[in-house]
């Protein structure tokens, strides 16, 4: 089948750019940031219409794709969701020759190097990374060095974390000085340690929120004096003159990347790849990270000031990736354990 004749539509036009591309992104502030920099930039550069569809999080997106609803070409994913997306055939391999900017990614985050994209083929191109570090109200607390430092009389009932199970286990593990990259699947003792920690954290926690919005609001109106919040949101709160600071404790913290994958049933594969390539372009990343404050994955000589000040960027060595397959395997069990721990 050649590139001529009556088959000359988008499907067979393997190496041709389509007129438009449908991209799934997160909603809210991050969505706005992506939209303003990456999407608009891509549209301008390639004269392709980008249709953005926003999602609350990874799992909603995956559920929708699983159920069959999508005319999406490009999906946004966090690395923790990549293994299940790959094993459920929701995404297809990226043809490396079409995405030369994959090589720009620092080794730390490269899908070639990291366990989150198992197998020989590449399915995912991360464009930012961020830690699940510790945010705190600077009026009340001085900069904590350790996770332990935030548990004071004052913060009892004023700590907030998320209920996402990877974060719950990851942060509790970090408290114990365990790295989520190296959790021992077979060690009951480790897990027991983690659940005991969750239980003791729970005494200070007023809410395990399931949306980032609640995390952010809680810090903004000072209900939360300490807990989890991403650097990008902290930076935004600081703009609103909220006395909130962000740090990575010395025990370390879990980290994640966000990136794009090519949808398994797209018929604009080449365009999708071109888009991903664009997102990985250091210039694009520079632009994006200067707005959002999340650190770029590309190797670059100079990072924006906002990123420069980012504890995520400064303490990259304290951040650990998840052992994603371990996570996927145990999620339901952990989730149940977590609910029972906090619900009793």
């Amino acid at each position: 089948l050649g590139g001529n004749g009556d088959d000359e539509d988008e499907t067979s036009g393997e190496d041709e750019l389509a007129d438009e591309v449908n991209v799934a992104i997160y909603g809210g502030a991050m969505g706005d940031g992506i939209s303003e920099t990456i999407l608009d930039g891509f549209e301008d550069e390639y004269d392709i219409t980008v249709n953005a569809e926003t999602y609350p999080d990874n799992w909603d997106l995956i559920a929708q794709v699983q159920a069959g609803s999508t005319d999406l070409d490009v999906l946004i994913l966090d690395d923790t969701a990549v293994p299940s997306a790959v094993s459920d055939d929701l995404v297809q391999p990226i043809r490396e020759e079409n995405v030369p900017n994959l090589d720009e990614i620092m080794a730390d985050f490269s899908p070639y190097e990291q366990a989150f994209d198992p197998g020989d083929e590449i399915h995912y191109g991360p464009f930012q990374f961020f830690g699940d570090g510790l945010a705190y109200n600077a009026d009340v607390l001085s900069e904590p060095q350790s996770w332990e430092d935030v548990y004071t009389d004052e913060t009892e009932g004023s700590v907030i974390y998320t209920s996402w199970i990877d974060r719950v286990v990851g942060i509790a593990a970090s408290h114990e000085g365990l790295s989520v990259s190296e959790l021992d699947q077979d060690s009951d003792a480790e897990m027991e340690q983690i659940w005991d920690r969750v239980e003791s954290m729970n005494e200070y926690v007023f809410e395990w929120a399931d949306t980032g919005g609640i995390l952010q609001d809680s810090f903004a109106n000072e209900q939360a004096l300490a807990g989890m919040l991403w650097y990008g949101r902290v930076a935004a709160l600081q703009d609103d003159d909220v006395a909130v600071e962000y740090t990575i404790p010395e025990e370390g913290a879990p980290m994640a990347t966000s990136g794009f994958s090519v949808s398994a049933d797209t018929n604009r594969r080449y365009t999708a790849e071109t888009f991903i390539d664009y997102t990985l372009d250091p210039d694009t990343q520079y632009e994006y990270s200067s707005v959002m404050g999340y650190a770029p994955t590309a190797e670059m000589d100079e990072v924006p000031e906002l990123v420069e000040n980012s504890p995520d960027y400064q303490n990259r060595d304290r951040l650990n990736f998840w052992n994603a397959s371990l996570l996927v395997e145990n999620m339901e069990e952990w989730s149940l354990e977590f609910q029972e721990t906090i619900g009793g």
Partner: protein
Amino acid sequence: MALVLSLLGGALVIIGAYSVITPVPPQGDVSFTLEHYRRFFGTSYYLSVLWDSLVIAIGTTLLAFLLGYPAAYLLATTDSEHKNLYLLMLILPFWINVVVRTYAWRLILGSGGLVDWVLYDVTGVANESVQLLYSRGAIAIGLVHVFLPFMIIPIYVSLASIDRSGVEAAKNLGANRLVAFTEVTWPQSLPGVAAGVLLVFVMSFGAFVVPSLLGGRANIMIANVIGDMFGQLQEWGLGSAISMVFIVVVLTIVYVFNRWVNLGDVYGMGGDSE
């Protein structure tokens, strides 16, 4: 019409099938299994969430009824010409997205919120900061707020259709206002009460947004568990099984309730209730 019905039937068949096969969604070889149900019934946590949801739904329904009935009564018996406007005013706030409204409740109920401000900062009734969020009570308040019109409107309709001379007859026979109400008005308003109670109960039993925003993780309801199964946890089989159990539980309750107050009445069929 047939399209709509078959849509619903089809949906039920699919969920029913998902609850007894593996893997879900089906890929390659599919085999029959009762594992999903075994997991559900074997886990006391799921059962306790189901039970707690039931309790919250009943509490919400009761609260909505207690708040809604007198208002429906007043609206049904008033001679005000603005009656329709008042009824409309009950519904219009609900055109603000439920998330936005529920967020507003967070600001009212949370510590540092409106209630706290009034009770602690201004009046000093409370001697420490008041935190009403993250409790079953907060869920109930939020749910009542969301579902109140569904309680009020049916009760209003049924009260408005009662012949007022019955109350006068009762008074003439020596009943004071309260007795005339309990003996005459109340029993005749039961069809509307049944409709309202049914709607609010069913909808609050399956509530999703309000518990997750107001109740906190420790107080999630069954729909949140189902949501997790289809979302974060990717356990569609278990999610389908929980859904099937939930549907059966609701339908059983609805059925028992209907035996008690004749469903025909709910639809205004009137007639042979005993």
